[in-house]
């Protein structure tokens, strides 16, 4: 089972949620649940960050999430796994989550592997951009890296 969404509070009236993630991946056959939460951190490149605005090519992001999930299931030969991925769009203040990846699998080793695989691939392949805001009132779009084909 798989769930993926881009959550823009201005449009959806909701924020990405660990509670929703927990509910989705709950499975009595799964002995392990892993929750990865990416938060806005205070410092980046020696600059005091106060928040980040995310932009995304939504359709391609969801398609990419699904593709990465399918690859992960195949790569780790998982017969049963539940995966929940939500990424924020729009402004996210310091300390708040920008992404949640929740995974439930039969055993912990595969849950750890799949969770790690998902976030690393998302970082390399999902068309999402970010603009950082700093304490000195300045802001900038980050240079980013070439998308991995």
């Amino acid at each position: 089972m798989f769930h993926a969404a881009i959550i823009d509070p201005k449009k959806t009236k909701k924020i990405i949620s660990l509670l929703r993630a927990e509910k989705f991946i709950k499975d009595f056959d799964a002995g392990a649940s892993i929750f990865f939460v990416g938060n806005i951190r205070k410092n980046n490149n020696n600059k005091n960050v106060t928040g980040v605005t995310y932009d995304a090519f939504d359709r391609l992001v969801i398609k990419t999430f699904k593709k990465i999930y399918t690859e992960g299931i195949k790569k780790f030969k998982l017969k049963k796994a539940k995966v929940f991925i939500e990424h924020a769009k729009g402004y996210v203040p310091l300390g708040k989550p920008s992404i949640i990846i929740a995974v439930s699998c039969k055993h912990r080793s595969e849950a750890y592997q799949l969770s790690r695989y998902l976030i690393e691939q998302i970082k390399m392949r999902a068309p999402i951009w970010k603009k950082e805001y700093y304490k000195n009132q300045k802001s900038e779009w980050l240079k980013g890296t070439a998308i991995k084909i």
Partner: protein
Amino acid sequence: MACQNFYRINFDKSAKVKNIRNKLIEIIEEKYSGNKAYKDLVKKSAFCSERDEIVNDSYVLNKDKMISIIPPIGGG
């Protein structure tokens, strides 16, 4: 780029993504004094087909086909 919202680029026949990328670099050389940051942006950008698929530099664009540019990414 600057105050102009778009550039019109004409190709004689069909063009490959590679041709578009090279043409954009030519424009940067001519109109933006070869600005390195702009050129890096073009070099590191990916291209996406109408079917929402990332395509490589050999992808061919025929008449009326659309393509979008995906700048370097930084999500997660």
